[in-house]
């Protein structure tokens, strides 16, 4: 068989361009106990975070452990992910660990810490593929949002009922197929009719920017990782049109 000596005229491994300068975590705490908590978040270590948090709570206020340990660690994870150092799995397991730690702190605190806001998430009726939604849920929670997870194959009515009940800052919808995403337009109309002018972030599989731009409230979610940023914008007072303008154009 004839062989190829040089592949560089066939393809270029752009994934290897500029690699090698691994940056790693820049964050550390002078406090050994908090450092352990941070480390568990950074490594997504759900097994050891329980002990680490409990140890820190022995000497520190729960809010300190949350703010100076868990949230700091999670912010560093976000930075590493944004910079391409971490992959999604690192962010997800970090968020798993962080949420375990948070639960312990909240128990000690005797109440939940105040959330930045509530987001209702769902996967369209007829779609059983809810992985995208699950990632959105994890990332929103790790970023301090309350998530009302309606699950998959959710009829329009259920979404509207949930919005009325929880008064969220944002709603998300995931659909793999274009023939199920048609529900999004209906949801948009119903929300407007009921007076909820909140951003309705739609994404997943076959959902396209072009389609989402076609109805009011619609903001196209290209990637699950955008969800926390969009929710923050909503909390900070941007309306759906501003959010669309910022993220979709």
């Amino acid at each position, binding site marked *: *068989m*004839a*062989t*190829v000596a040089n*592949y560089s005229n*066939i*393809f270029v*491994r*752009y*994934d*290897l361009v500029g*690699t*090698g300068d*691994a940056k790693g975590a820049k964050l550390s705490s002078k406090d050994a106990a908090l450092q352990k908590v941070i480390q568990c978040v950074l490594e*997504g270590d759900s097994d050891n975070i329980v002990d680490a948090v409990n140890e820190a709570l022995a000497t520190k206020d729960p809010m300190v452990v949350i703010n100076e340990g868990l949230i700091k660690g999670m912010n560093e994870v976000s930075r590493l*992910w944004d910079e*391409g150092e*971490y*992959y*999604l*799995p*690192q962010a*997800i*397991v970090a968020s*798993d660990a962080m949420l375990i730690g948070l639960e312990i702190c909240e128990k000690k605190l005797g109440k939940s810490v105040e959330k930045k806001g509530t987001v209702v998430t769902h996967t369209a009726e*007829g*779609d*059983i*593929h*809810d*992985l995208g939604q*699950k*990632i959105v849920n994890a990332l929103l929670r790790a970023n301090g949002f309350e998530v009302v997870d309606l*699950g*998959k*194959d959710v009829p329009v009515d259920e979404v509207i009922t949930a919005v009325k009940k929880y008064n969220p800052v944002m709603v998300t919808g995931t659909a793999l*197929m*274009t*023939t*199920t*995403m*048609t529900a999004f337009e209906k949801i948009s109309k119903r929300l407007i009719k009921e007076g909820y002018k909140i951003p309705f972030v739609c994404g997943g599989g*076959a959902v396209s920017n072009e*389609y989402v731009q076609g109805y009011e409230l619609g903001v196209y979610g290209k990637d699950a990782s955008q969800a926390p940023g969009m929710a923050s914008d909503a909390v900070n007072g941007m309306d759906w049109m501003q959010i669309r303008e910022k993220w979709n154009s």
Partner: protein
Amino acid sequence: MPKFDKMAYASADEMIFGTAKNPVKYGRDFTVGGGYVFPELVPHPRPGTETTKKTLVKEYEKMVTDVLGRCVAIGIPGIQIELEHVYQMTKNPDWGGEIAAATKHLQEEYHRKYGLKSAIRATIADYRKPDEEDIRNCVALENQLKTFETSAAGGADNLSIESVGGKEISDYTIVRQDIRGTLFGIGVLGSRDMEFMWKKIVEIADKYGVTPGGDTDCAQANVAMFMAGGYQDRSVPHTFAALTRAISAARSLVAYEQGAKGPSKDCGYEDVIIKAITGVPIAMEGKASACAHSDLVGNLIAACCDLWSNEAVEYHDMFGGTTVAVFTEILGYDVALMNTAIEMGQAKILRDMMVESDKYRDTHGFILCPQNAYEIGKAIVENNTSYYARARAAAIKAGELMLKDSKLQMSAFEKESLESAMRTLESLPEKEEDFISECADIYKKLIPGFSLANYGL
């Protein structure tokens, strides 16, 4: 239980596009794997047309007419059309049946008028929810089986599915780079669910005298592969996705152990491995399925195909005609090139070009090039003591192959991820029962709704 204990092919070099050890003949003069490659065109209805049966049937009639029309406009000798069900077509069994009948009617017309060879694959939507219901006894399953029947009765020549058993586990584990859980979700649960499903599908196919086609690990291995994505994506390591693919070969094989005859489903990238083991003809999708997703194996994946597909294209207008006609033309010429190579006695040369184009482009292409696919196939048949054992062996073999070929470049992160997965794979229990009980404990806690009973456990 696993059945295949040897390879259909004596060597990887024997494997080639257009020819399968066990060709399949059905439809209107249509033979798959009998010496030539045919296109398989997958049309997807526009959103909105799924609202009523009438509008959806009409949409399919238009799409199918455009496809067949383009075939006779440019001289494509034959074509298979896949009716890949949108949820509504399966949920309403009469819809699926009527669309199959309408498609058959049009194909017969073109066959009579022009001699155009043709066939229909009906791929039923698996919309069972493993984490919410009893997937061996639920309305969704009932509808799916009914729709297999209406499709076969309506005119489908080939019955296929993309089954979802174990997805509740793999969805959780793939995005956490957890190879153990992924092996469990695909290799064990997926395989067991397929055994359950395919017994029933083959029964229905036999009842109607049609061909049980194949399954694909779309819901799991393709999730990993698409999330791994292109060179700049940072969702799932490419090495991890490649291991997932190797595991999926051991799983999708179950269809053929239960009586499926192929051609396999287009989006089963693992089918190269399955062809090596079983000799069934396979449908593949590569560069011409860019309309549906991007991948790093655009040419290589055609090396052993018997049908060449576009995966799915939504029905719209382009300058050159409707999308379904446009992709019929692209597939038609791709296939014409392969068939020309066959007629010239130079098919292997073209195959090797396809392979070299992408073998080192990415890990996925690397493990699916015929040589490596064959090796993984051997690992599967040589470890046929349990679904678990062979799936694990496939992953370990794939990992070894990746680590030992110095031409396959990897970033430090990708390599670390692979080595870490390999350490886990090697540390796992030898016996399937031990592995199952270990995983059951872990994932019952982590995944709400996960139920062993769904898998006869």
